[in-house]
């Protein structure tokens, strides 16, 4: 087990390094550099030259990458080309805001979708199941920014004015200081992931409910509640864990679009701006962060799967 974790972690680090190379290559392929991007329309040759000089962009692109990766190994993510501030300082507030958003969404989405999945499985082919299935198919088909815009129309501007339409967070505040700005973005994320997790939960739950040991348990006269929550759910949950982990990982990236729709000051917004600015250290740091979460969540999902599956648990020893 320990060996497996170490192996996976090593592979994870390798993956991250490869990703940083790919992102670096992608940035290289983009025309223009930070100086021309920052100056924009004012990018006259002499102003570009002056700014390139200030930003040390005249160093070769490979040495810029080596500088960055060297910094990362010694615990520093470099200096943003656009703001001339350390990347860690620039991103710390935004990482907190994004993490809070994803966390709130996950804490709502996972129990909710597992509960819904169980409910639909138990009421299979009855109205609740049909309505739930149709709704989740519709939601799954909608891109999350459409869901976000719909929520804004409904709850912020046109119909009700219950929540802010735009997540303005003052620079000296964090998302948890002004929880009402988190409601609609979090709800958007919840609506985007619940369909997937609840459908997989429903499917595996139906399979389990039809299995022989559940019939056996019922025949033995165990109460229905115990049958469901003690015998059926723990066995049905394995595929749901995998899907939930994938969905959480997706959120780490999907948050980019949602943050854009709500102007939520998180890492997604920072990433969009940094790509436009050709701000290599910021783009690298944000993508590595996102990829790191992906790798980690997959590892956690695998571990959980092993823990809830006796067969795997014993063989792993």
């Amino acid at each position, binding site marked *: 087990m320990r060996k497996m974790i170490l192996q996976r972690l090593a592979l994870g680090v390798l993956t991250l390094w490869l990703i940083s190379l790919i992102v670096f290559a992608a940035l290289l392929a*983009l*025309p*223009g*550099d930070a100086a*021309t*991007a*920052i*100056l*924009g*329309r*004012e*990018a*006259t040759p*002499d*102003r570009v030259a*002056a700014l390139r000089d*200030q930003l040390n962009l005249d160093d070769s692109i490979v040495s810029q990458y080596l500088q960055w990766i060297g910094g990362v190994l010694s615990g520093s993510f470099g200096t*943003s080309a*656009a*703001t001339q501030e350390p990347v860690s300082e*620039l991103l710390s507030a935004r990482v907190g805001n994004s993490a809070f958003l994803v966390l709130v969404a996950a804490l709502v989405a996972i129990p909710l979708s597992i509960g819904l999945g169980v409910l639909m499985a138990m009421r299979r082919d009855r109205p609740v199941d049909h309505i739930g299935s149709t709704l989740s198919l519709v939601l799954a088909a909608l891109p999350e920014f459409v869901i976000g*815009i719909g929520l*804004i129309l409904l709850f*912020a*501007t*046109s119909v009700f*004015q219950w929540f*802010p*339409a*735009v997540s*303005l*967070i*003052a*620079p000296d505040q964090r998302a948890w200081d002004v929880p009402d700005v988190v409601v609609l973005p979090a709800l958007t994320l919840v609506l985007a992931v619940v369909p997937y997790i609840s459908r997989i939960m429903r499917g595996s739950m139906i399979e389990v409910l039809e299995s022989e040991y559940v019939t056996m348990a019922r025949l033995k006269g165990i109460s229905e509640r115990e049958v469901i929550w003690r015998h059926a759910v723990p066995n049905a949950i394995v595929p749901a864990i995998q899907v939930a982990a994938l969905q959480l990982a997706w959120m780490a990236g999907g948050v980019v679009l949602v943050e*854009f*729709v*709500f*102007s939520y*000051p998180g890492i997604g*917004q*920072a990433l*969009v*701006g*940094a*790509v*436009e*600015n*050709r*701000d290599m250290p*910021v783009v690298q740091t944000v993508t590595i962060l996102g990829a790191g979460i992906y790798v980690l969540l997959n590892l956690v999902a695998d571990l959980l799967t092993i823990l809830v599956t006796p067969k795997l648990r014993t063989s792993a020893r």
Partner: protein
Amino acid sequence: MTIEPGMRWVDALTRRQALRGALGTGVALTAGGVLGACGGDGDGGGGGGGTPATSSSTGDAELKPGGILRVGATGGGAEDTIDAHRPTSDPDIMRVWNMYESLAVRTPDFEELEMLLAESIEAGKTPKTWDIRLKPDLTFHNGKPVTADDVIFSLRRIVDEKDPKVGAASIGYIDAKWLKKLDDRTVRVPLQFANAGFPDDLGQYFNAIVPTDYDPENPVGTGPFKYDSFTPGEQSRFLKNPDYWEDGKPYVDELIIVDFTDDTARVNALLGGQVDAITTLPASQIANVQANPNFKVLISETGAWQPFTMRVDAAPFDDNRVRQAFRLIVDRQQMVDQVLSGQGRIANDLYAPYDPAFASDLPQREQDLEQAKSLLKQAGHEGLSVELVTAPVFQGIVEAAQVFAEQAKGAGVDVKVRKVDSGTFYGDNYLKWPFAQDFWATRVYLAQVAQGDLPESPFNETHWKDPRFLDLIQQARAELDEAKRKEILVEAQTIQHEEGGYIIPYFSNIIDGYSAKLGGFVEAKSGFPFGNYWFKNSGFVA
């Protein structure tokens, strides 16, 4: 009338008060018509045909002091700056207008150059030397008086060869080494060549005056609002400058500028009451916002133009027949309707419509596909195929490219629209694309020529260098007699109209949205939202 900018100047007062007093609410449209008539405007369907005059006319409302004004700006990001001399994005420019001031600036109606910090800017015997005299008793936000030394420091900081700022493109020709302090309030500015248009080149918001110990980390200016806090890409906060030189202004205690990269988010923030005013309301949203009694829309006709740029030294545009054919391809009214949703008026491939020397007598160019085809055939370019590079750097530009490509099919020209991101657009090929687009603010004619149509211009994107044209511009710059100068400039414009590299299909309106609780906004031909972003003139309605 209480909120008119520049009321203190008698000449400003009489001229504009006459206009406004007589014409009442429809100021933007009517004043535009009057100006056009002065210039003998004879264009077919130009002058704002069909544009609704949504004059907000809060001009008469009583404003009360106090309150916090929150404004949503368009764009911005981590690259935002609060440096007086480096504004690039909409929020940057908004900050500069409110925190700093230049010596002079065009009023929102563009009728005159209003003196701000300067009392006068006067030419010596010839327009090669100029004397700038400061108003008395001006102070910076930190209480330090504004002196000739600060003016010299600021001008040198702008044109600094090692680190040229935005304004270097407009006043790079001052002889910075020989700037001379005549007394505490007077500076003598020698130019490298005679230029009667110097006051207008100098009178730009980005040529602001900062103190000799200026530190952008802890910025100080003379504007109506002083610095409080600034977070790039998010928001900046300013407090009322209690010692501002214009009595009774600003009205509000606090000004907060919030960045919005997304149009929808900006409009939603207004509708949801999270900000009180926003710049660039998308034309599609006008009806929606107007229908709500809690909000108002401010539509300004401007001299802002978004041209297609053809490089006169690159094939196929090095042949003037091709340039003419491309100009004949454009159905201008259709472009205004489709691209701007009617929020603009057609143009005639010439800029600076508010300049007294604007050549409004030249015949309006209309779409003529047969003529275009025949010109292309003569030039040996039947079945021509060209690439048009576009980027979403200004509202409507990408759409204009698509409409142009569609219209070009009528003349048998295959225009391939290549949409790139702004980083690519302004990358290594910037100012070198054979066929691309750009956007420009309202300027007077000579100032615009200096920006984009001289060999030494920083933004000569069409690579225009016609010797006859250059000769005329030099003559005009040295000429202080207005009537004679106009004659020369009309000739220069005739050359541009016949052979230039710009296709200028229209002048676009700017559209702002704001809460009905606010008043004091005026239309701006200058092309800057909310009447030159002058929030000193606006406040909450009593």
